[in-house]
């Protein structure tokens, strides 16, 4: 076969694959923006909740990067989120960096640094010991923030964060419109970047590591180096979420650095489906609304109901809500061919 015809066949066989994933990128962005608009129309008086969901969605996306794409078991992901939140808050309160974009950069750096630390420590172990290490880490981070109260405000929280208007134009208003718009913008940008990253050579390497790290080593690549790198990326994403939370609520509390938040983010991820960015988003939205609605309707038993929902999903839709739906659609399409 000549070079020209060979390149032709390669091009024709790969074009549909590329087009399909690009279409899904656009569809994903469109869905995020559409949901954001619907949320705005349905809950104009509760934009704070919607913004909180957006920040948590960033946390769950960051968890998906290490757990869903690399197979790392962790119950300490809030360490990355909380570090981002405190970094943004401390920048504003102690260093007078009140420009929201600069606070965001602080959050990203803080989260990425926490990601580096957590990645290096957690990768010392595998399986159950790894999980225990992650729990130990989140408690250490929590305790550190509690003790360093001159910087963090300790258990009272870090208050007095007063961000400047976004781009000098949009003040963070009482209704939370600017914060919500800012949050949705950040989520859309992060989502688009992550779609590129999970499809990149690096994303492919990580999927390989998750399936068989020994095979990856036999190809001359270091699973540890790759996962630490993913942890840093994950920390940056969680840091965006943390900074968004600090900017929108104007306080940072110890709860942002808690085991509870870590565990909840894992629950949300499993609920939606690991190893898919759409799954992470779906899980967050369903869990957060469920929590909000059910806890308002029945404040005493809402956790029981969340538990029941989770058991139902694990038993009947083990790939999570999105994962199961996607598999179902794929099967139908296969059958239809």
């Amino acid at each position, binding site marked *: 076969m000549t070079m020209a015809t060979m390149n032709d066949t390669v091009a024709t066989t790969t074009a549909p694959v590329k087009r399909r994933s690009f279409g899904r990128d656009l569809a994903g962005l469109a869905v995020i923006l559409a949901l954001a608009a619907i949320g705005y129309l349905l809950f104009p008086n509760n934009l704070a909740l919607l913004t909180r969901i957006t920040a948590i969605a960033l946390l769950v996306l960051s968890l998906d990067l290490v757990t869903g794409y690399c197979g790392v078991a962790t119950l300490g992901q809030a360490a990355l989120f909380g570090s981002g939140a405190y970094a943004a808050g401390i920048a504003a309160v102690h260093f007078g960096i009140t420009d929201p974009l600069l606070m965001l950069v602080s959050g990203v750096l803080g989260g990425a640094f926490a990601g580096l630390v957590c990645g290096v420590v957690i990768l010392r172990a595998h399986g159950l010991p790894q999980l225990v290490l992650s729990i130990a880490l989140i408690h250490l981070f929590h305790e550190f923030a509690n003790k360093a109260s001159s910087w963090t405000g300790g258990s009272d929280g870090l208050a007095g964060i007063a961000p400047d208007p976004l781009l000098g134009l949009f003040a963070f208003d009482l209704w939370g419109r600017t914060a919500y718009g800012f949050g949705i913008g950040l989520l859309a940008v992060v989502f688009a970047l992550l779609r590129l990253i999970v*499809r990149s050579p690096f994303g492919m390497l990580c999927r390989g590591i998750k399936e068989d790290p020994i*095979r990856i080593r036999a190809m001359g690549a270091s699973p540890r180096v790759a996962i630490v790198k993913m942890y840093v990326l994950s920390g940056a994403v969680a840091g965006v979420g943390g900074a968004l939370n600090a900017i929108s609520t104007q306080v940072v509390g110890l709860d942002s650095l808690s085991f509870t938040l870590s565990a909840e983010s894992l629950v949300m991820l499993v609920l939606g489906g690991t190893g898919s960015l759409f799954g992470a988003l779906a899980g967050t939205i369903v869990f957060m609304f469920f929590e909000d609605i059910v806890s308002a309707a029945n404040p005493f038993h809402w956790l029981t109901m969340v538990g029941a929902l989770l058991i139902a999903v694990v038993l009947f839709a083990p790939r999570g809500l999105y994962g199961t739906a996607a598999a179902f659609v794929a099967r139908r399409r296969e059958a239809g061919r």
Partner: protein
Amino acid sequence: MSAIFEVRNLKRSFGGLAVTDDVSLSMAPGDRVALIGPNGAGKTTFVNLVTGNLKADAGDVRIGGESVTHIDAIGRVRRGLVRSFQVTRLFHEMTPAEHVALAVLQRDGRAGRLFGHFLAMPDVMAEVGDLLGKLGLRELMHRRVSEIAYGQQRLLEIAVALALKPRVLLLDEPAAGVPQSDTGRIEEALADLPADLAVLMIEHDMDLVFRFAKRVIVLAAGAIIFDGTPSEVTRDQRVREAYLGSYANASHAA
């Protein structure tokens, strides 16, 4: 020619039992060596030791004259010592194209790239298409590995190893589990290997061994008991004794 791959006095025992017992061998570029021996002779263990997947108790391994004894498995691959696995180790959710592309990108130090897609990298795709074409996997390149036949998975295992452009290739029973009808493909692939590549193949199928190898090494109970030409090996008394009562005898009788 000077040795590209050298093993000196390699030793390893499991619970007092020597599974690799003072093994030494040396290979030059272009060598075609078959490593044979009864089940449990320690052939796979030998591969695990030299590739650094398993720690040796003693001995020295050299690639291109450089001692790699204190270098880990990843470093040895990067120096050109590549293996395939006796039981295929592939990524079931990925396609053959992704496997080979990942190996090519890794070899070129591009596997850490955060942007771009291999399907849009013409140089990578040319190599992927070329390699998979040679192994008859071109039509299947975008199927998931879990959907392709085991014989084809064995071929993909070889493709991944070749994509790393090794200097020394260790193939652990490349035809094991492949239906008779498909072994032809594997043989063609073996005949087509780069001429300057040093290949050591572990294989039980003696027909394949005789067609492939210019040199045969026999391992029994962890020690090399024969190292010579294929024509001599069948006449060697110790080799016969080692195989006595084992499956090889049975299959010859059958």
